[in-house]
């Protein structure tokens, strides 16, 4: 059974179409979620895509968190179902309090747009783990991607195996020079406590098709598809 993956579109989202295409490429069924809708179009998993929702007014993601669709996403996440926030989607999840910390202006002030490397950490997402230490090549493109959080929160993320990815050198070494935005602990992506909400700044939806470049994004999307499939099957069994 193909899981249905919903991709939200807010005014100013611009990676929603790429996310829909990547989901189809990965063998799942993509469905659109309109920001003004209160339901998630029967999705088994949800992507909050990249872009500049509501023009990044006030703070990135600050306004999108009030969209009717976000009330549904919050409920969906609280039921333990999988949500992936990419770039602006990560910023929205932090503003909505579904992930801790915040994303602020890049250390070097400049908008960064290039292929970088991230290293999967020994972390604990639901249903699937990324192979710890594996290096993925994947693009970033953001001006406000520097993850920050108070020291006690950073400690909890580290101790709880909730750091999903860190920016690294091509060989997997941690080295600040390969961190594109100056984030704390070279953090590129984190899990929520339950392991069903993942946020990251790099763009897995731009790195799935080998004809177009690196395919580091496949693993990340595969997590979402696997978790969605498990839960879709579980709810189908309950319904019978």
């Amino acid at each position: 059974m193909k899981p249905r993956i919903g991709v939200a579109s807010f005014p100013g989202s611009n990676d929603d179409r790429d996310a829909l295409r990547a989901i189809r490429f990965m063998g799942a069924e993509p469905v659109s979620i309109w920001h003004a809708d209160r339901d998630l179009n029967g999705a088994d998993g949800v992507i909050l895509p990249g872009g500049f929702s509501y023009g990044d007014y006030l703070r990135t993601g600050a306004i999108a968190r009030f969209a009717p669709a976000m009330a549904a996403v919050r409920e969906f996440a609280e039921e333990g179902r999988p949500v992936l926030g990419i770039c602006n989607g990560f910023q929205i999840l932090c503003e909505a309090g579904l992930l801790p910390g915040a994303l602020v202006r890049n250390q070097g002030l400049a908008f960064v747009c290039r292929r970088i490397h991230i290293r999967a950490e020994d972390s604990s997402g639901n249903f699937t783990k990324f192979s710890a230490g594996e290096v993925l090549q994947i693009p970033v493109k953001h001006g406000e991607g520097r993850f920050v959080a108070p020291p006690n929160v950073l400690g909890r993320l580290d101790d709880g195996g909730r750091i999903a990815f860190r920016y690294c050198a091509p060989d997997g070494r941690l080295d600040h020079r390969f961190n594109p935005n100056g984030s704390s602990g070279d953090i590129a992506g984190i899990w929520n406590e339950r392991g069903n909400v993942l946020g990251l700044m790099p763009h897995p939806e731009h790195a799935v098709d080998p004809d177009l470049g690196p395919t580091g994004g496949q693993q990340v999307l595969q997590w979402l598809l696997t978790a969605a499939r498990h839960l879709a099957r579980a709810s189908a069994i309950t319904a019978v």
Partner: protein
Amino acid sequence: MKHRFEVLVSLKAGLLDPQGKTVQDALPTLGWDNVSEVRVGKHIELVVEAEDEASARAQVEDMAGRFLSNPVIEDFRILAMEETS
């Protein structure tokens, strides 16, 4: 009664403010070489209709803490302006 406020939002002390640093670094090029600790923040003006200033201010405190600023990275100050009819 309408009550006018200004909310000043700034990045928390200790958190790197690249924008402030860039402004600071540009000042000496215009001859001002005695300026330090430049921080760039936000200035939000608003009018609240409420029975008295205390309840209007309480509401602004709540809005500033939950929406106008992000407590993870920002601090805010509230200034009451002159009353408007």
